[in-house]
């Protein structure tokens, strides 16, 4: 795994999970897939850290989960965003944008 793509620092993974769930409730594998698709395969969440992150976010009350049936008629645990989670997402998004703009500016300086 090249360092240039794929590895995500923890806070970023949390933010991406929240963002994914902002659209609709989803199970763990689906979240992983969707992040990969949306980033045009640039971001590949390490699936080893996906589940700990999901459980931690649940504990923090930002997402909640229940068991549902998938379209293929399989039982899966679906996560959805809570109100607190939505606020957290907004906060983190804003924080991220500010940070990335700042990094951009630094990089563009000659």
């Amino acid at each position, binding site marked *: 795994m090249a360092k240039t793509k794929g590895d995500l620092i923890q806070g970023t993974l949390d933010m991406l999970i929240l963002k994914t769930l902002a659209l609709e409730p989803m199970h763990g*594998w689906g979240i992983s897939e969707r992040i990969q698709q949306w980033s045009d395969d640039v971001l590949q969440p390490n699936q*080893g850290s996906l589940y700990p992150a999901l*459980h931690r976010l649940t504990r923090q009350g930002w997402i909640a989960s229940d*068991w549902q049936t998938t379209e293929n008629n399989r039982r899966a645990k679906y996560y959805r965003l809570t109100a607190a989670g939505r606020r957290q997402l907004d906060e983190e998004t804003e924080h991220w944008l500010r940070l990335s703009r700042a990094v951009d500016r630094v990089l563009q300086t000659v």
Partner: protein
Amino acid sequence: MRWLTDLWFRALALVRGSRLDEELQEEIAFHLEMETEKNLAAGIEPEEARRLARRHLGGAERVRLHTRDAWGVRWAQELLLDLRYGLRSLAKTPGVTGASLTILAVALAAATALFSLVDGILLRPLPYPAPERLVAVWETHPERSEKNVVSTASFVDWTERERVFEDLGAYYQEVGIGLTGEGDPLQVTAAMVTPGVLTTLGVDASLGRTFVPEEGEDGDADVVILSDGFWRRRFGADPGILGETVRLDGVEHRVVGVMPPGMAFPTPGTDVWLPLQFSESARNDRKSHSLRVVGRLETGISLEAAEEQMNRLEAALAEEHPEFLSGWGVNLVPLHEETVGQVRPALAVLLGASGLLLLLGCVNVANLLLARSVNRDREIAVRQALGASRSRLIRQLLTESLALGLLGGAAALPMAVWATRSLRALAPAGIPRLEETAVDTRVFAFAFALTLATSLLIGVLPALRSSRTDPADRLHVGPPTSADAGGTRPLDLLVVCEVALSLVLLIGAGLLGRSLWTLSRIDPGFEFRGVLAVSLDLPRSSYAGTAEHLRFYEHALERVRALPGVVEASAISDPPLIGAGTSRSFILEENPERQRSAETVDYRLATDDYFRTLRIPLLEGRVFGPSDRQDSPPVLVVNEAMARRYWPEDDALGRRLAFNAEGPWYEVVGVVGDTRYKDPEAPPPPAMYAPLRQKTWEWMSWMTLLVKTDGDPHTLAEPARQAIWEVDPDLPILATRSVEELAADALSRRRFHTTVFALFAGVALLLGVLGLYGVLAFSVERRRREIGIRMALGARKGSVTRLVLGRGAGLAAAGIALGTVVALGLSQLLAALLYGVRATDPATFVTVALVLGTVALVACLPPLRRALKIDPARVLN
């Protein structure tokens, strides 16, 4: 609210962890399936598709473990596990565990009980509003006491002119008065107080009212306030008591109020409060000092500033009345200090002793735990080899110690309650505020935290030590060898400390014990065996004056003498060992200049037989006889101390003195031996005796009958009471006790603190010796192999004995040496409590060291026996 969600999640995870785990496994399985399907759809072989999916996830088991970590309950789960394991492992060594628990509990309980007592008596503020502003007000004179009772006129002048007190009140120390009416006449403890006393203290009645100002001036004086306890005991807490009357000293008094429970002023035993009124002559009486005064300082004025202002006022008064007041000043003492100052040194010492005991308890537990841990090196090495991290090991051992500490604390709490109660029960009467003490939870918490910290600290040592070495090394070693002896060095150090601490406490107990022994063998100057003391006070309502008093005492003594078993009977106004005593100032005939208002000498009325009843020796001249009548020339008998003080060069016989410049003159007709008075620790004070028949002060209405018998004086108590009631059926009898008991009572406080200290020292000795025994036994156990080899190589019993005893003796000697040094420093703190023995008394130090050394050697014997029984053939195979 997020923390609440968090907590809820964790709690759920803790309680339903297995279900969460199942769900997680299902979740992971689902993930793998989806990933595999995706791979299959991409045209990958099924086998390879599954492998890739698993690789992509990064190992199902690892994901599971990491996710469980995210629940945030791992530590709690492990704690439960450790706790279970710890308890099991504690149960596996019941001896050590039991000993540690007992020691912990005893030390904790003792420290808590004693500190609770000290806290209740010394530290907690008095139970009045803004108690820091309350002061006791005394007059002072360089030649009299620093805390002299106040003259009525001074008090009246103060109340009119002072500017420093919000309120000021005067009272007489409790007096016993008779309650008559229903049943046997009863003695109640009354406090005569001006209304200002109650407003100064800021205590309101719980029922009815306190005194109104007029009742302290010229209003109705026949009113009474009852104490809560007396109201409940005597009147069954009848709320209708207000307005009813009770008969006190033969006079009907109207009940106007009931005080709240806990009102303990002037003393806890006060049953009733009566208003104190001053007659016109009393208001101008500057000569006799008899009042106690309590005041509440104005807000914002300091004690020093108030005292300075009062002294300025006293100086101004002295200019107006130089003949009475020159040289007098005013002394303000915080009421709290006044109440408990007397018991402070003893309690402080006891507190120090309990602190040492607590320390000793901690050291002892440390010792036992450490000894235990040395044996667990291998267990820890195994755990380490199996992958336990250092922090995990530390946590496990901490949990175990925690369990021990918690169990010890749990055992100590009921013991502390019990010990506090026992201490209260053991304490002699008259310790101020004793009834306010209770087990203090803060104190218990502190002592508990201390022992807990100790056990935790010690518990973690083996884990720390083990991490220094490679577990492989320790897994290889066979049975312990002498090389391991180095591991017991901390143990040795602790044992030395223990022995030293025991020695310090034992020396303290030894010094106090010697003081008590010296005091109890002091010659009081009289023979108290076989004498019953019956205290009486004739109420003014039925005994108007001296003639009535004389008649009564004559009849009463006659009846008592006639009782079977009575050898003789006499009477004295203030018998040795009880009573506040009465003292008078006087003029010497040959040296009238020596009269000073400040100088007074104890004055007692006695019947002719008094000196014989108590076997007080007549040194010169004669004692009273029938020839000393009301109309014959007045005479006095003085004691040796008085003769020596006033006529050091000449014979006292034939000297004359008077209580007023106008006379009459009293001739000294005899000199008798000194008797120790109220305080057996003080040298006998000068005293003079006047014959009862020549009594002049009408108000001196009290006498104590002394009844001598060949047998047990207690058997005479009831007959004596009946004999007195034959003369006056309404007379309350204040007390009937044997003089021997009174003598014992006089030392009761000292006996109390000496006993408690000795108890502590006893426990300390036990702990110290247990510690020594434990370390030796442990060391013999560890060195079995070495000793076996030595024996196999021809070492004789003598050299094994030297090996074991030498080590024990070495430890004990080091402890004794250390303890001696510490005790030399600390025993100075005891100086205030010692009598007839110096704080560095060599005899006590040597004796205690010998005792401790002997006991220590005895403690070495069981381990020695075990060492000698070692069979080389068995330990070496």
